[in-house]
C-alpha cells in the first residue's frame, strides 16, 4: 500500500514536470491565438528549433567536456532566446504580414506548411540523427520521503510557473499587453487609437518563439533526446491549451499539468493495476478532453467570447 502511494506521488511529480512543458508550448499557442486568432501549428517546431540552437551553442562552447556546466547552459538559453527573437520576427514577416488581410484559415495553413518546412530544414542542416543533450544538473536529485525529486524537473516546473505568471501579468496589467488584447478584438479600432498594430503582431510572434525556445531548452535534457520529430509534442500540447480554455493564459498551466499528470499516472500505476488502461494510453488524454468539454465547452478557465456589434 505504502509503495503504491509513493509510486503515485512519484508519477504525479513527473507528470507535473512533463505537464509544465506542455503548459509552455500551450502558452505559445495561446499568445498567438489571443492576439491574432490564429492557431500556430508550427509552435512545436519552434520548440524544436530552440532545442537545436541551444544544443549547438552548448556544444560549441563546451569543447571536450561531457556535462555542461551551469553557465554554459545559461549561455545556451540566452543564445536560443536571442535566436528566437530574430526568428519570431522573421516568421511574422513571412507568414503573418503578407497574409494579414487574408482569412485566418490561410494563415493557419501557412503555419502548417512552415512546420513541415522547418522539420526538413533542420534535418538538412543538423542531420537526421538524434542528438543526445546532457542535463546541466547531471542526475542531481533529492529524496522527499521516498519520492525522487530531480533538480531538473523542479527547474522546469518553477520555470513554467514563472513564465506563465509573467505573461499573465504582461497581458492584463501593462499597456502593451492590453493593446494586444485590444488589437485582437478590433485591429481597426486599435489602429485609430494609434496602436502600432503591425508591431504588436510582430511582438506576439516573438513572444511565442521565445516561449517555444525556452520549452525546447528545458525539454531536451529531460528527454535526453533531440530530433526533428520532437515538434510533434506540439500536437500533444494543443489539447492542453483547449482543456485549460483556449485564450486563457492561466489555463495553459492548468491544462498542461492536468494532461501531464494523467499521462504519467495512466502509463504507470493505472496500467500496472488495470490492464485495459494500457490499451487506451494513447487516447486517454483525448477522452478526458472530450469529457471536460462536454461539461464546460469553454475549457476549465476559458470565458465565453462576447460577440456583439
Amino acid at each position, binding site marked *: 500500500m505504502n509503495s503504491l502511494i509513493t509510486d503515485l506521488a512519484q508519477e504525479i511529480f513527473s507528470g507535473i514536470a512533463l505537464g509544465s512543458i506542455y503548459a509552455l508550448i500551450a502558452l505559445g499557442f495561446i499568445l498567438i491565438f489571443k492576439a491574432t486568432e490564429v492557431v500556430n501549428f508550427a509552435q512545436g517546431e519552434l520548440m524544436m528549433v530552440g532545442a537545436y540552437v541551444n544544443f549547438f551553442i552548448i556544444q560549441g562552447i563546451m569543447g571536450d567536456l561531457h556535462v555542461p556546466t551551469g553557465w554554459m547552459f545559461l549561455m545556451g538559453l540566452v543564445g536560443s532566446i536571442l535566436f528566437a527573437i530574430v526568428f519570431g520576427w522573421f516568421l511574422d514577416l513571412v507568414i503573418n504580414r503578407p497574409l494579414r488581410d487574408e482569412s485566418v484559415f490561410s494563415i493557419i495553413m501557412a503555419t502548417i506548411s512552415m512546420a513541415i518546412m522547418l522539420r526538413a530544414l533542420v534535418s538538412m542542416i543538423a542531420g537526421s540523427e538524434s542528438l543526445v543533450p546532457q542535463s546541466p544538473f547531471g542526475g542531481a536529485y533529492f529524496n522527499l520521503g521516498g519520492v525522487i525529486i530531480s533538480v531538473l524537473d523542479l527547474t522546469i516546473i518553477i520555470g513554467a510557473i514563472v513564465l506563465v505568471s509573467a505573461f499573465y501579468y504582461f497581458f492584463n496589467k501593462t*499597456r502593451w499587453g*492590453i493593446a494586444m488584447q485590444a488589437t485582437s478584438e478590433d485591429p481597426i*479600432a486599435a489602429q*485609430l*487609437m*494609434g496602436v502600432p498594430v503591425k508591431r504588436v503582431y510582430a511582438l506576439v510572434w516573438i513572444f511565442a518563439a521565445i516561449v517555444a525556445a525556452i520549452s525546447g531548452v528545458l525539454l531536451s535534457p529531460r528527454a535526453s533526446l533531440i530530433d526533428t520529430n520532437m515538434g510533434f509534442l506540439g500536437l500533444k500540447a494543443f489539447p492542453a491549451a483547449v482543456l485549460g480554455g483556449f485564450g486563457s493564459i492561466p489555463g495553459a498551466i492548468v491544462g498542461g499539468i492536468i494532461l501531464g499528470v494523467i499521462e504519467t499516472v495512466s502509463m504507470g500505476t493505472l496500467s500496472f493495476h488495470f490492464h485495459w488502461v494500457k490499451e487506451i494510453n494513447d487516447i486517454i488524454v483525448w477522452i478526458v478532453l472530450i469529457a471536460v468539454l462536454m461539461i464546460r465547452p469553454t475549457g476549465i478557465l476559458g470565458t465565453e467570447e*462576447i460577440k456583439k*456589434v
Partner: protein
Amino acid sequence: MLKLIGVETFYGKIKALHGISLKVLEGQLVCILGANGAGKSTILKSITGLVKPEYGTIHFKGRRIDQMDSEDIVKLSIGHVPEWRRIFSELTVYENLLMGGFLLKDDDLIHERMEEAFQHFPILKKRKTQQAGNMSGGEQQMLAISRALMLKPKLLLLDEPSLGLSPLLVQDIFATIKELHESGVTILMVEQNVNQALKIADYGYVLTTGKIFLSGTYKDLLEEEKVREQYLGEGKYNRRAKVWSG
C-alpha cells in the same frame, strides 16, 4: 484645417466616392448628411487612412495625409469615433480609456484625462471596472467619445453618433457634441439624424451615392426643398396627405 479635393475611393472595383471635395475650418462643426450607402463613413475612413483614396488629395493643417498610415494620422491629432462605436467589448471601461491614451507616454497625464472623462460622464466612473461590452448603447457611445478624446484631438471625426440609440439618448449625445464643439474642438460628423444634426452644425454637406449634391449652412439647407423632402419628412407624400385631408 481639413481639406479634401477630388477624393475618389474604391472598395475593390466599386467606386464608393466620386470626387469628394469639402473643407472644415478651425472651430467649425461640419456635418455630412446622406442616406445609407451614400459613402458618408467612407469619407471619414479615407481621412484616417483606414481606406486609401485612389485619386485626390487630403490635407490636414497644410500637410498631405492621404497616403499616410492610420497610426501616423492619429498622431497628427485627429480622433475618429467609428461607426457602431467599436469599443473593445472584452476590456473594461478603464482599459478602453487606457487604450484611448495609448500614445500618451505620461501615466499622470493619462489619469488626468481619464478624470476629465469621468467628470463629463459620471456613469463611466461607476462602470470603470466593468466589461465595456455589458454596457448599454448610450454608455458605450459615451465611452467611445471619451476614448477618442483621451488624446485631446484638434479634429474629431464622429461617425453616426446617434446610431442605435433611443431618442432620449440621442438628445443627450447631441448635447454633448454641442458642448464639445463649444469648448473649441473642431468636429466633422456624419449623421442620418438630419434634424438634430443640422441644428448644431455650422455647415452641412449632403451626399448621394458618393457625390456631394448640396452644401450650405443650416438655414440654406433647410430652405432647400430637396433636403426637406428627402430627409426631414416634408416631402410630396406629406403635402399630398394635406391635399387628402382637405
